[in-house]
């Protein structure tokens, strides 16, 4: 009896400092996470604010995280008078065609590999791993492109990225986790592999298909270096290249956008770049809720052993 009481007392006396350390950690956690969130958020707010602030406020550094003297002149001029819209269209085209091609290639590749009894499965997986760990390098790849006549064609941006091994493995792992019984019963019903894949497996794998499509979409939308390397005509410039060029020529571009020097204009070099940046971010932000919904699942699926 008495020992029990002693134990309870001990627990209680230990309970006090436990509470304290928990409180301290909670406070630290809130401060730390708030800081981290602000560090991620404020730079974006700053650029958005600049895009809609008047030129003199932007130039004199008076714009922080809210627009000063709201104006839409810059954004309307940037959209109508520069090639921004054309580069957005180009990037959209590359993204839509690219995601379609990549998803088709990846699903078709992942399905046979998800069958553990596939003869030669190990061989195909080894091929994938080799291509992942050993890089042929920039110049040899460039020479292959040139030989195939793919320079200055969007195929040069799409074909090499049509199969991301990492993304394909995410799909493969998901396929492996699907209940085998449904596929077996389909096979008994006389469905062949193609029909099983598209009519039975794919509908069951919609979450992973959505995740990987988004991953591909982001990577096509963000293509920069391949476009610098392979695309030469200015009419085919993709968004990221356009934006990079705009940053280095912001001063002359903003001068060219001011049609009448005698009339006050809201346009400033920084404002022009900010507008283009905001427009480049919008698709990502629009897709983001969907990315978020599926991403964590995707990350956990992908981190499982392949």
């Amino acid at each position: 009896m008495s020992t029990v009481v002693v134990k309870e007392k001990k627990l209680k006396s230990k309970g006090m400092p436990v509470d304290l350390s928990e409180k301290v950690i909670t406070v630290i956690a809130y401060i730390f996470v708030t800081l981290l969130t602000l560090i991620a958020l404020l730079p974006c707010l700053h650029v958005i604010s600049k895009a809609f602030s008047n030129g003199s406020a932007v130039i004199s550094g008076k714009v922080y995280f809210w627009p000063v003297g709201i104006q839409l002149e810059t954004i309307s001029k940037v959209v109508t008078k520069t090639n921004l819209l054309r580069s957005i269209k180009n990037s959209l085209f590359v993204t839509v065609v690219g995601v379609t091609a990549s998803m088709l290639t990846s699903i078709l590749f992942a399905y046979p590999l998800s069958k553990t009894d596939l003869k030669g499965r190990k061989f195909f997986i080894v091929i994938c791993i080799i291509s992942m760990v050993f890089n042929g390098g920039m110049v040899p790849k460039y020479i292959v492109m040139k030989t195939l006549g793919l320079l200055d064609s969007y195929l040069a941006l799409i074909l090499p990225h049509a199969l991301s091994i990492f993304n394909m493995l995410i799909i493969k792992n998901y396929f492996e986790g699907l209940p085998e019984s449904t596929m077996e019963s389909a096979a008994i019903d006389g469905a062949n592999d193609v029909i099983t894949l598209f009519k039975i497996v794919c509908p069951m794998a919609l979450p992973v298909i959505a995740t990987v499509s988004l991953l591909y979409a982001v990577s096509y939308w963000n293509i920069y270096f391949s476009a610098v390397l392979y695309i030469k005509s200015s009419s085919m410039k993709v968004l990221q290249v356009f934006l990079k060029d705009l940053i280095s020529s912001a001063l002359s571009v903003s001068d060219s956008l001011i049609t009448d020097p005698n009339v006050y204009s809201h346009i400033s070099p920084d404002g022009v770049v900010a507008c283009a940046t905001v427009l480049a971010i919008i698709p990502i932000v629009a897709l983001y809720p969907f990315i978020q919904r599926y991403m964590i699942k995707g990350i956990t699926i992908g981190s499982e052993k392949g």
Partner: protein
Amino acid sequence: MSTISYTKNISTDNFKKKGKKTLNYVKNHIPLYLMLIPGLLVIIVFNFVPYFGLLIAFEDYNIFAGNNPLDAILRSEWVGFANFQKLFTNSYFWKVFRNTIVINGLKILWLFPLPIISAILLNEIKNSAFRRISQTVIYMPYFFSWVIIFSIFSSILGTYGVVNTLIASLGFERISFFMEPGIFRGLLVFTEGWKTVGYNTVIFLASITAIDSTLYEAARIDGAGKLRQIWNITIPGILPTIILMLILNVGHILDSSFDQVLVFYNPIVYDVADIIQTYVYRMGIGQMNFSLSTALGLFNSVVAFILIVGSNALSKKLLNRSIW
């Protein structure tokens, strides 16, 4: 004698049966093999054919020597290891090699522990709305391209950006952050963190939520405080993920940062910012010095290959887990 021939018969029989089985399997599953063709073509044409192009590293490659650039590889003059000799005796090579390791090493040093700490702390936040919002915000930058991030930060840190306005108002001289060799590497590390810390936090957080919650209850009953629980349960629980991520990071120490540096740097900071791949790019595509550039690229690929395969072997040994 007879038993030996008997077993021999069986084994060849088995072998034949096995071969027949495989053939039958392939015959019955032709569509499965046809499905692999598009992906295999992509791998062969854009990954394996370039391996053949690596021969350029051992030649004095003349792109116009043949009917097409690939054919030219067979017709160019063979020079053995001359390109590598030129490379390794060039002090600039050692500079970009060092820059690559220093920049990526600094990134690991500063940015590797951060997402672990932030995941542990984020896990302590019980207010689910706050938690969800902060999680959403911190890992959005991961999906921004380097060009967008460059644009955002050059706007903030530019001559007339907010930071410099503040500096000027305090009576100091304005700083050109992107042209200051002493600051530039820090800028690379900071922006890398801005892009990736949130994403990596989510990876560690997923690993934390996978820990068995009864462990915490048991610890609480035993009177272990929060700090103790973190130290004795959370950290050991996510240790495999920590080690795996660290190994992966170190494995990629030679082939990371290319896109970022290419977008951020300029001739004024080449001294501290030029890395192997940016140098390969300028030398190969810019100056059309194909052979030397390929030699450098091959060197980079081989060392990166050794690092990655080595780190995978390490991960297999330590964690019984393969990266692929």
